């Protein structure tokens, strides 16, 4: 699966991903002579180093150069948003680098990827890409959470918003309406809210999730055979439940203002 980013420092590399969820300061974060990470276990040498963005001291650029001098530099760097320190370090150390990829959540440790920095692309090998919708269907500050059966292939036994795959040729909002009707028999109108898509990895599957918020009105929920049961849950309720990744984030985004009011 190939994703388009933006070239910051030219070059090509293929290698194994090591990923950080948080912004990285090379000064204090990486040992310049060994490549050993100090903020988590692991070593950056020869790896495709993925992190959201740089931070900290400008001396970090020289730490990257130090890595190169010792032959311990990463094979490539991938950021969501490049800033001066890491961009400078990558260019002066001739480390291929791209930024403006949608999210570091595209990647998992151990993924084999090919970075063509000059073209601004990254190819994640061996993953399946699925576009899905996930909707908060709400009434009185609570929304429907459905319980997936243990036999479900994705997130078995988890509580989920009303979610499903986008069919070929279908727009995300149409898919959201269709899934809600199929799974709950509720007919919804225009969305009350939308969010930027979220990326979620489940093993070798990469989901691009389009979140929506709809009003359930006074309609009654009638589940189809896909889910075991459902509840009307508040943000607080969801905190204690085993939910699909990002469920709380999406609920909070859409429901927090309603709850305040």
């Amino acid at each position: 699966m190939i994703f388009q980013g933006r070239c910051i420092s030219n070059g090509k590399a293929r290698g194994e991903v090591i990923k950080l969820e948080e912004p990285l300061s090379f000064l204090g974060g990486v040992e310049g002579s060994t490549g050993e990470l100090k903020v988590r276990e692991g070593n950056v040498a020869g790896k495709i180093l993925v992190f959201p963005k740089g931070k900290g001291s400008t001396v970090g650029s020289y730490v990257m150069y130090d890595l190169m001098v010792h032959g311990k530099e990463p094979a490539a760097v991938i950021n969501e948003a490049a800033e001066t320190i890491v961009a400078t370090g990558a260019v002066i150390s001739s480390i291929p680098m791209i930024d403006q990829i949608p999210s570091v959540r595209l990647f998992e440790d151990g993924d084999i990827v090919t970075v063509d920095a000059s073209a601004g692309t990254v190819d994640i090998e061996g993953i399946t890409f699925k576009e899905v919708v996930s909707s908060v269907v709400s009434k009185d500050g609570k929304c429907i959470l459905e319980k997936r059966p243990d036999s479900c292939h994705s997130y078995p036994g988890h509580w989920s918003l009303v979610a499903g795959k986008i069919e070929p040729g279908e727009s995300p909002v149409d898919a959201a309406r269709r899934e809600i009707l199929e799974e709950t028999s509720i007919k919804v109108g225009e969305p009350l809210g939308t969010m930027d898509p979220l990326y979620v990895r489940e093993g070798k599957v990469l989901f691009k999730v389009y979140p929506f918020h709809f009003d359930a009105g006074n309609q009654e929920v009638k589940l189809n055979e896909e889910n075991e049961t459902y509840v009307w849950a508040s943000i607080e309720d969801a905190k204690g439940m085993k939910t699909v990744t990002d469920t709380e984030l999406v609920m909070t985004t859409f429901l927090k203002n309603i709850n305040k009011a």
Partner: protein
Amino acid sequence: MDLTREEEAILNGEQGEGRQKAMELVTALGKIYGADSLIDITSAHLSGASYKTIGDGGLKYLEDLVGGGATVSVPSTLNPVGMDRTRWKEMHISEEFAQKQLRIIDLYGQMGIKKTCSCTPYVGPNVPSMGDHVAWAESSALSFVNSYIGARTNREGGPGALAAAILGKTANYGLHLDEKRVPTVVIDADIDGSVFSYSLLGQAVGMAIGSGIPYFKNISPEVEEAKALSAAMAASGSIALYHVEGVTPEAGNFDVSELETIHIGKKELKAAFDKLNTVEDVQLIAIGCPHLTEKEMHQIAQFLKGKEKKNKDVEVWFCTSTEIREKCAEDVKIMEKFGPVLADTCMVVAPIEGTFQRTGTNSAKAGNYLPTLCSQKAMCMDIAALMELVL
């Protein structure tokens, strides 16, 4: 980004690897910040001069640049280094540090950069004019030339400024553009007008707004006061440009009647003072951040004339540039009775953490960096109050 044919040629390596790398860096930074093109610069000022801050990685980088034949194509000056070149033993510097530091200075020299090392090049060897585009690192100096002189520079990092110096060009974005130099907030200042009160004012403004472009009313800084103000705001915040009503050259261009006004008076200065003072006794008193000017050297010598250093347990350092130390030979004689007048270095970029744990300074900038870069507990007071500790 639109590049000229010549710039494209440099990027493609037609003028050698050194210039190609410099072009890659300047265009990469331009891309990140949305520059449309490159612009010619008239000068550069480089940070990343102390071995303490750049380390072995930085030293090797400079070795490789010089090996690749890189030279600067505009007048360029260098920031303070980790020691006085001749009197480093008085600063408790190790032989190994000294050798590496001297090598770094030599390498910058081989690229054609002036080997005087000061954070106040604008009072001597490197004075931009109003409207000049320049590429300056060193947060206090670039804020001074942006604000007090009306030259134009972004907050460059060390390698970025060096790449710009090699090319004679930098990316056209941010503070190079008219529309990015417009004030964002009015500061109604109530201070006593001493240099130290400008340091505290800068500290308080940085704490209040963090970033942005303040427009000051009710102050009238001269060079020394503007130097203290620039340094403090760049350290407590990330402020790279300010305007002063009736003083700085661009201030008259703006209508600030619609802007929010923040009052900075006694209460705010007290909070700034408290933030900078975390210790009550010191082992070192270090004065000259940014470097002392000729006028300040005279004033300190006047103050110390006829007095005697009684407290032998506290060391005193004065920091300035080689040029100013030479110019002020008579003042130096008086000051040396209290401690060395060190040239081309300062308490922040020297490895003082090997010798001291508690340092006093008159500089809000040093007050910010002594705890983080030098592991010091810091005291920050005006020069007379500091000197009282040893009189």
